[in-house]
């Protein structure tokens, strides 16, 4: 147990902040609940069973919105006062000098775009090399890729990168034979092997970019705060091409500062960990954050999928501080390019977050961490609750419409009443306005704050463009919200019914054509149908209520064209030309992002491998190319294999050379690639056997490969 309370805000002050924050949430929720209860009460002088259910649903849903609103309000207050006097970033100023210590930058990857991963890493490394004391940093690519092509491309790219940046002995590559426990297991495997060599580690996602200055500053912050266990940065969403990703990046860039400042206001040293772009103190992490399995099987129990929140809670439980360094510049990530890709990511996150329900009452967890876990659960569970609330509200409205209305003289006046005082505004309108205020005021305030700073507004394309982009973003998010509600409802139900998710590589870059009609119809068709049925029945039965529902219905009914429209890279580019959704990272890109885009453009200009060889190009290179074969073998661990296994491998080798890889399963290819002796034998046999003894595929490979190899062929094309 380790506690350094001196670095933290004093308890009384922190408690005051939390009291104000949670009291505001409570107060707003109480006020809104009053209005709803009054609204239900006045129609029939009492609450029906359905109305009690609606009220019970309304309270947590409104509280959830109120948390966001109060966070933003706290952030606005803090930013207006020139920033929080208690934030971790103050303990090491930007620009240095920085106190550095041994730090491992680890990047777990799984079947990711190799060019993106290694070019991303290249700009991070180049940026770190400019920092004084860069010798303190080592880089680890931790691969769990399970596709033969992917694996070989990663190895080739690693060697090329090391050659090009002089990284041998500083940049390391590890491929696990068995991908146990996914990303958390991959990081744990690194820690078990080399963790002892480092005081800190920075975890990067495959699409993360961090500048050398940001990394050095994080280490310096850790050195200045010996009680800090984790410092999480707030990565900015960048490099969006499709309209969808640019809209998300704009929202993230313009609205997140006040939310993040507000979050830091009340959480202080009891923050959260988001899994990447964060620095971790290795020793306590190893001691306290190895995760056990949850009771039962997946998807509810078993391995903890969303490990980051739990790791933060365990660090806090052990007495180590977890900070959010929201104002450390130079931390970036990429977002999903389309609505459908975003939903796929949510499907994984949903299962992980719902698992956290187990941990809400875990002994020893700090209340702040329980709250983080609860918010994570609510991020998904709120969707089915909202859907249920809306459907039940429709039923309630139908009930009311079908009940004979009393004479006007007998009816209570439609006013807003509070504590016996009445205002001549319909109560439903008051409630609606309050909800809209909570949803849109933080956005409005963010825009106003930005407009007040002409230089910053110019970086977003100028004041008018900020206003237009913000209006379009609000409209876009209004259309997307009901679609996400239906997606998340489906994911929650699937998880509860025991349907787990597989581990699939995340798609991060936009394709020119975006989502095709077929995929959009299959994905959004049921949502459209649901919206149509709901809308038509509302219109027939309760026309007055239809207007209230129309924003929700519009999102559902138009989900197919909206999804396709937002997915197009060409529309994203056109919007950029028009100055819509511009961010400072687009108008004044930092050197690292500019270099990354330039390098990737060069990479993607190269032609893909010859079509007939493409499917097994990695295996082909590992067998045929003398250098790649040698490199691959030298990276494999020598293992003793039984005579039976050797016989099996011999048969497999012969089959591969005689028949080609067409009929080989991925498992068989991986088995050969994992066996050094097989790879040595295959290389020798391939080049010694007469052509007639080889499959046509290999003969073609030998002819074509040497044409391509006229220029040194590497994954990074330098």
């Amino acid at each position, binding site marked *: 147990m380790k506690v350094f309370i001196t670095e933290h805000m004093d308890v009384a002050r922190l408690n005051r902040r939390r009291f104000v924050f949670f009291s505001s949430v409570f107060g707003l929720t109480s006020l809104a609940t009053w209005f709803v209860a009054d609204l239900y009460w006045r129609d029939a002088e009492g609450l029906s069973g359905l109305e009690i259910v609606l009220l019970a649903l309304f309270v947590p849903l409104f509280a959830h919105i109120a948390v966001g609103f109060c966070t933003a309000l706290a952030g606005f207050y803090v930013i207006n006062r020139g920033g929080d006097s208690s934030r971790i970033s103050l303990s090491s100023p930007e620009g240095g000098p920085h106190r550095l210590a041994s730090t491992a930058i680890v990047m777990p990857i799984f079947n990711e775009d190799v060019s993106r991963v290694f070019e991303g890493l290249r700009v991070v490394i180049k940026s770190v090399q400019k920092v004084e004391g860069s010798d303190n940093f080592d880089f680890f690519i931790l691969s769990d890729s399970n596709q033969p092509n992917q694996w070989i491309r990663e190895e080739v790219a690693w060697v090329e990168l090391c050659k090009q940046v002089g990284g041998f002995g500083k940049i390391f*590559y590890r491929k696990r034979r068995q991908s146990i426990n996914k990303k958390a297991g991959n990081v744990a495997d690194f820690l078990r092997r*080399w963790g*002892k060599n480092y005081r800190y580690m920075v975890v990067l996602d495959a699409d993360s970019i961090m500048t050398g200055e940001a990394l050095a500053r994080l280490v310096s912050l850790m050195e200045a705060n010996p009680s800090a266990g984790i410092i999480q940065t707030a990565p900015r969403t960048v490099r969006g091409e499709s309209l969808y990703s640019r809209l998300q990046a704009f929202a993230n860039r313009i609205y997140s500062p006040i939310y993040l400042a507000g979050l830091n206001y009340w959480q202080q040293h009891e923050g959260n960990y988001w899994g990447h772009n964060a620095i971790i103190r290795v020793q306590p992490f190893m001691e306290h954050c190895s995760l056990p399995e949850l*009771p039962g099987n997946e998807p509810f129990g078993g391995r903890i999928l969303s490990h980051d929140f739990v790791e933060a809670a365990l660090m806090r439980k052990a007495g180590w501080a977890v900070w959010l360094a929201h104002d450390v510049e130079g931390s970036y990530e990429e977002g999903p390019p389309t609505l459908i890709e975003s939903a796929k990511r949510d499907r994984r996150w949903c299962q992980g977050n719902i698992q956290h329900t187990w941990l809400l*009452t875990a002994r020893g967890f700090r209340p702040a961490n329980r709250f983080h876990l609860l918010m994570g659960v609510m991020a998904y569970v709120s969707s089915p609750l909202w859907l249920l609330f809306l459907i039940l509200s429709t039923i309630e409205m139908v009930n009311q419409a079908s009940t004979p209305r009393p004479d006007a003289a007998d009816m209570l006046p439609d006013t807003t009443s509070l504590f016996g005082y009445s205002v001549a505004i319909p109560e439903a309108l008051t409630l609606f306005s309050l909800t809209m205020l909570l949803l849109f005021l933080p956005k409005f305030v963010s825009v106003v704050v930005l407009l007040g700073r002409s230089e910053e507004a110019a970086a977003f394309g100028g004041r008018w463009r900020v206003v237009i982009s913000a209006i379009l973003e609000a409209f876009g998010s209004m259309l997307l919200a009901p679609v996400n509600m239906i997606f998340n409802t489906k994911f929650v139900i699937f998880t509860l019914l025991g349907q787990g998710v597989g581990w699939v590589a995340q798609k991060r870059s936009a394709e020119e054509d975006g989502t095709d009609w077929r995929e959009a119809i299959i994905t959004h068709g049921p949502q459209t149908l649901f919206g149509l049925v709901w809308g038509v029945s509302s219109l027939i039965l309760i026309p007055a209520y239809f207007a209230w529902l129309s924003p929700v219905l519009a999102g559902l009914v138009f989900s197919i064209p909206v999804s396709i429209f937002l997915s197009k890279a060409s529309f994203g580019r056109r919007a950029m030309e028009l100055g819509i959704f511009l961010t400072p990272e687009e108008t004044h890109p930092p050197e690292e992002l500019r270099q990354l885009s330039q390098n990737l453009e060069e990479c993607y200009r190269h032609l893909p491998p010859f079509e007939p060889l493409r499917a097994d190009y990695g295996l082909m290179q590992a067998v045929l190319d003398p*250098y790649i074969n*040698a490199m691959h*073998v030298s990276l494999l661990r020598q293992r003793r294999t039984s005579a039976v296994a050797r016989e099996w491998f011999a048969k497999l080798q012969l089959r591969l050379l005689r028949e080609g890889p067409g009929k080989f399963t991925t498992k068989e290819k991986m088995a050969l690639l994992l066996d050094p002796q097989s790879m040595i034998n295959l290389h020798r046999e391939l080049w010694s056997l007469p052509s007639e003894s080889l499959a046509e595929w290999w003969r073609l490979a030998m*002819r074509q490969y*040497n044409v391509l190899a006229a220029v040194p062929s590497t994954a990074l094309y330098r």
Partner: protein
Amino acid sequence: MAAVTGEPFGAAPAMGLPEAFRPKTGTMESWNAAYVRVEDYLRAHRIHNRLHQSRLIQKILERAARRHEEHPALDPTMVAAEETEALMDGWFGDVLDEKGQPHDRLAIDGRVALLLCDGPVHWPYAFLDEDNVPEDFVKAMKSSHLEAGPDLAVSSMVPRPIDLGRITEAAGETLERFERWPVLRALFLWLVFASALGGIFYITR
């Protein structure tokens, strides 16, 4: 006994090699195939310099031809591949000071060293040249080795059980019981369904 089958070599120099190259055994097709294979293999090593390539091919095929005379049953392609391998092993052994090591090790170490120092690019005439190997090339070869990870510093990281609290433990036990008894799970689902049905019935009255 084999294989002076097919058309023997005539007077014309085969495959652009100097006149001295006259395999006494094997067919022209088979030696052509061997030539192509050796050429491909050298190109796969990024030896693109035609002059250097031709010199090496000649050297390899001459050795192969001599050995083929003793074992005419063997395919010239295979013999040429073995001679290429032997030539490379000898050269790697000399340059890396690893003479006497098994072939597999020499070949892997040598090729990795060549790859890392970009030997064929920076010293286009030197690879497999037995007389003139520049000093800096040898130095670069010797200092090139692949290190995928630093030395291991193994430590343990043991999962610690999390005390989930009484409520969660009870829920966990219930769920585990459901998993063990599918009948219970079905009954529970029916109960939830029936309750939902009852609820809908009530609220729509």
